[in-house]
């Protein structure tokens, strides 16, 4: 793929977006009311992710119980059919997946009020049905929604976004084609602040460009937070109306 196509001189990207536009973002919560305490279904561009949160519940092993706070675990299931070509191997024990799980766990550990739920366990399961770039970021958004749906006390939203750097132009919310063609940065932003819980750069980026990438990333993450907030309020509103007819 020639670099020309990624970002045209007219300022258009492969899918017709401009540099500062995020992809279609649709989410719903409480999608699996019977299977889990909190659940969400998220579509960010062509990423499709189901997240289930179970708990706080009695730990499955007594050794997992901590008398001061809840224990957490995250498991990420990248389905074999999630990419264009069906993968021949299971992704379960790949180091990359283990790394993502650990990073997600550590991101949310600091954002959930674990001390409110001693001797319990909160387990998060993520199923990736389809992936199209910026998957890690979408996982963060999915988990945030599911945790809020489960009624688990959190300090604030965490919204994830990935930003690519094309030459000198940062491109917000990259898809697979863009992700493969250039260096990307993934951020996990706390609420409307400029605090980063997660920051991951996996390819070379000029040090002097990093700051502008972070800035646009934070702005994009705030946008996603608003979109999630909007959906959540819509849902909450529906529930409140229903409850008032009781």
């Amino acid at each position, binding site marked *: 793929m020639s670099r020309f196509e990624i970002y045209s001189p007219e*300022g258009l990207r*492969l*899918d*017709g977006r*401009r*540099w*500062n*536009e*995020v*992809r*279609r*973002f649709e989410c719903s919560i409480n999608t699996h*009311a019977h299977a889990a*305490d909190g659940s969400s279904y998220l579509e960010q*561009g*062509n990423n499709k992710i189901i997240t289930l949160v179970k*708990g*706080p*519940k*009695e730990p499955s092993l007594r050794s997992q119980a901590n008398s001061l706070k809840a224990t957490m675990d995250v498991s990420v299931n990248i389905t074999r059919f999630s990419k264009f070509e069906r993968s021949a191997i299971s992704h379960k024990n790949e180091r990359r997946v283990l790394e993502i799980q650990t990073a997600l766990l550590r991101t949310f550990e600091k954002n959930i*009020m674990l001390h409110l*739920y*001693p*001797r*319990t366990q909160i387990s998060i399961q993520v199923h990736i049905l389809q992936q199209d770039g910026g998957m890690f970021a979408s996982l963060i958004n999915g988990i945030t929604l599911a945790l*809020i*749906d*489960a*009624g688990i*006390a*959190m*300090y*604030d*939203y965490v919204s994830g976004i990935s930003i690519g750097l094309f030459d*000198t*132009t940062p491109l917000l919310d990259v*898809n697979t084609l863009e992700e493969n063609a250039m260096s990307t940065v993934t951020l996990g932003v*706390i*609420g*409307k602040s400029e605090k980063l819980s997660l920051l991951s750069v996996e390819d070379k980026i000029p040090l002097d460009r990093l*700051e*502008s990438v972070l*800035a*646009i990333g*934070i*702005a*994009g993450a705030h*946008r996603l937070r*608003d*979109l999630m907030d*909007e959906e*959540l*309020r819509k*849902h*909450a509103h529906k*529930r409140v109306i*229903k*409850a008032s*007819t*009781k």
Partner: protein
Amino acid sequence: MSDVISVIKRQSGLKYASIDNDEMENFSSDEDVPMVDIDGKSNGGKRNEAAAGEIVTPGELITEDPIWMRGHGTYFLENSTYSSAAGTISRVNRLLSVIPLKGRYTPETGDHIVGRITDVGNKRWKVDIGGKQHAVLMLGSVNLPGGILRRKSESDELQMRTFLKEGDVLNAEVQSLFQDGSASLHTRSLKYGKLRDGLLIQVPSSLVVRSKNHTHNLPGNVTVLLGVNGFIWLRKTSKMDVARETPSAGPASDISEGPTGAKSLNPTNSVSITRLEEESSWKIYSDKNDPSITPSIRQNISRYANVIKALAFCEIGLTHERIVIGYEASIAYSNIGELIEREVMESIGDDVINIEKMRGNGATE
């Protein structure tokens, strides 16, 4: 991928002073793209005060007024109070809290609950009550065969499984709460104990409202136990249930008081609770269902179960009256299996609300 609908991010000036955003500004000013503005109502940080009953989401500023005491679902920094859950604001006197839209059952002392034994341990049973942690039922908090005042002996400890074992369902009352919020139960009343002759359904605990009475005899020879924790037991109405119902209008309705209460029962009642108790003895822990449950009662039980599922689907709070109304509305469907089809559940939900409004008690509760 041209069908991707994009949402345009307003580039509202990067907040960093030190950023070289020359080219960025060029972009945003040159290409003035139409902006989709949806964040009209969701910018929580800008409001100073959120009214009671209003919906808040995590991280949202509720108030900057330091007079409020911070309750559940909130956290604070200096004078500002923030929400930590998605829910509605509740202000009781000076106490400010956020009631989450959803969440597991939180036990409170005195709650009538239905639970399932998960573990038999040292002088105690662990009971799954759908809460954050399993509740504890101490051997000393149950009635054992052979009279209420009997002392618990070592042999009782050894044969705990003959009373209650893993998988058994029982109803009980929350006796006390531990420091970490987990509950200790007791079944020291004849209305509590092992459950038989029916089936268990689970609904969100928020749908069952705490009230004086949680056991109701329904038309069709079915009795429902609405556990506050959202566990619901439906069973064939037993003699005990009938006995309990008859004097319920009288002054001596508080059987829960134990043996004295049971004795003061209406003497005109044909079956005395004390006698029942003597008769039951070992039977209160029996695993045998009543052999006389007829197919029609079984059908009624499953009809009620599906009505409750339908009401829960529509997120309608469960009360005695509503279950009965729902049952009556469901008679229109002869096939019980039909009741859990989506459209039917919705229509039953609508029926219940409409009928209740017509009867004029819709606004209460």
